[in-house]
């Protein structure tokens, strides 16, 4: 996929019109905890964990558009994570490692929608 196609695709993602429900804040849907030992760097996280600790604070919570269950191409997910998109900041390889992103992009693409998510 070319870069301009990716951008078009990303731009086509509709933004949420308004909060559907009065439900903000709190921890996103449960994923296994990331165990970080004292004196050690953060271990590699699973896609579920990255989603819970980063993406899921906005997506599906009235801040960013819902991205699960929409079959977004993995390449588009990858591109948008690294470049940001309008209100979304970019995430650097030091924040979401290349290995984590390689697993995250297809996971976002293939994951089913979640009932508890809202906003779009």
């Amino acid at each position, binding site marked *: 996929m070319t870069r301009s196609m990716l951008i078009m695709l990303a731009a086509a993602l509709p933004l949420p019109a308004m909060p559907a429900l009065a439900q903000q804040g709190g921890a996103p849907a449960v994923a296994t905890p990331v165990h970080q030992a*004292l004196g050690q760097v953060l271990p590699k996280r699973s896609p579920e964990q990255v989603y819970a600790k980063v993406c899921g*604070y906005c997506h599906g919570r*009235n801040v960013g558009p819902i991205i699960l269950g929409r079959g977004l191409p993995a390449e588009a997910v990858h591109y948008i994570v*690294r470049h940001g998109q*309008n209100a979304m900041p*970019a995430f*650097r390889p030091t*924040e979401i490692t290349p290995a984590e992103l390689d697993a995250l992009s297809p996971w976002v693409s293939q994951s089913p929608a979640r009932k508890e998510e809202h906003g779009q």
Partner: protein
Amino acid sequence: MSLDLDRRGLLGAGLAGAASIGLGTGASAASPAPLAPGRSMADFAGAMKAFRGVVGAEWVFGDEEAVAPYDKAYIPDPAHRYKPVGAVCPQSLEEVQAIVRIANQYRQPLWTVSTGKNMGYGMTSPATPGQVVLDLKRMNRILEVDAELGTCLLEPGVTYQQLKDYLDENRIPLWIDVPTVGPIASPVGNTLDRGVGYTPYGEHFMFQCGMEVVLPSGEVMRTGMGSIKGSTAWQAFKWGYGPYLDGLFTQSNFGIVTKMGLWLMPRPPVYKPFMVRHGEMADVPRIIEAMRPLRVSNLVANCNLMMSASYQLAMFKRRNEIVPDGAPLDDASVKKAAKANGLGMWNTYFALYGTDETIAGVEPIIRASLSASGGEVLTAAEMGDNPWFHHHQTLMQGGLNLDEIGLLRWRGSGGGLAWFAPVAAARGVEAERQTALARQIVESHGFDYTAAYAIGWRDLHHIIALLFDKADAAEHARADACYKDLVVRFGAQGWASYRTGVNSMDLVARQYGEVNRRFNATLKHAIDPNGILSPGKSGII
């Protein structure tokens, strides 16, 4: 001409044309990323090669695609001046030292960030051309947590999320104190820019204790008690001996902080959040006058957020849900939308921390004075699951969310935000004048007054979110002009920013005066003769 002027005269004079020799520095024909003043392609290439030798090729970024994540910012920058030329990402103190030695050798400036989520202040964009971002996010070890003393020692890349997860998992009954964007930002980065949060530990730099710093020479210095062999008080006693040094490394470019101690608040037995709802824009002075004695006496111990209705609405709504596109955001429409969502024109959040007995003792006093100011004093009992109340209830106990990122979608496709944050003493008349002036300026440029006051112990941070659609070139240019107008016209009244973005560091530094500026420059030139650490930070070159 002074050395200072010589250095400053070089600003922006960097060479373009990195692409021409195929180094992939982020340069392209359309928008070349300039090198640092006076640096050649050979210097730059030599430094990048040497950096790779330290951290490995996979943690040095030089081509346009690889540098892209370092180039996304919310601030107005119509000429795209604040563009990094590369990035290097160490994982240890020794790697940082080696990078600093190389930077000195090649005179390659480094722009240091911890987690680099300085959103609305420039993210990871450097203040002057040709800088390589020194990205410390990979240094993210939680080194110590002392549950009895309520202290911790952290590396710069530890996010608030990591620290909170660690405390929760290990059932350590200590709280963190977050800025509103906790999950992706860091205690070290935020504290070094003297950021704020909303528990009683909200003035972050006050609760910092001990640092380890790599100096521009590559030497490592520990502040406070940290340089005493065998001391157990590095995170317990702030001042050490002689001049207090820690302040020198905040909002500055005198060193690279590689470890920081912080105090953490013990979880109180009882936490009770409140919202005070006021009905009119004109209630500003009454609210401040009522809150000040409560804050100065510490009866109310946390940093309060006094949020305008428009700021609150902008978090979860889009502008065209309130008024049609192109129409001014009038008070009547805002008031109507606020009311429909359980909000007033000003919504002030504070909390009480203690035991049932202590809270029962002070609550009536606080209620009496806030009610006398014309506010309705509300709690979870009345507000229930109101999303705004819930957001602030989360914040005032150091909880994590990113709800406020919603601000970035207020206008059009959004993505534009610059914080303008002038300080005043906590007096009603000052706030009243500031609100009037800010409204006049932003509205004259076609923007909205979406603002809050953070009521500190004796001060006000007037937090004005200049929200614009970055995809609209004309609006982007107007936002740039509006921001400068705000800085200049507030400055003329004696009000200057507590912190600012890379787009205005020089402008604000000039307001703090030439003597201060020269003093900073003298220090800078003495300790960093090659000018390699974050040139331009806080206007210091």
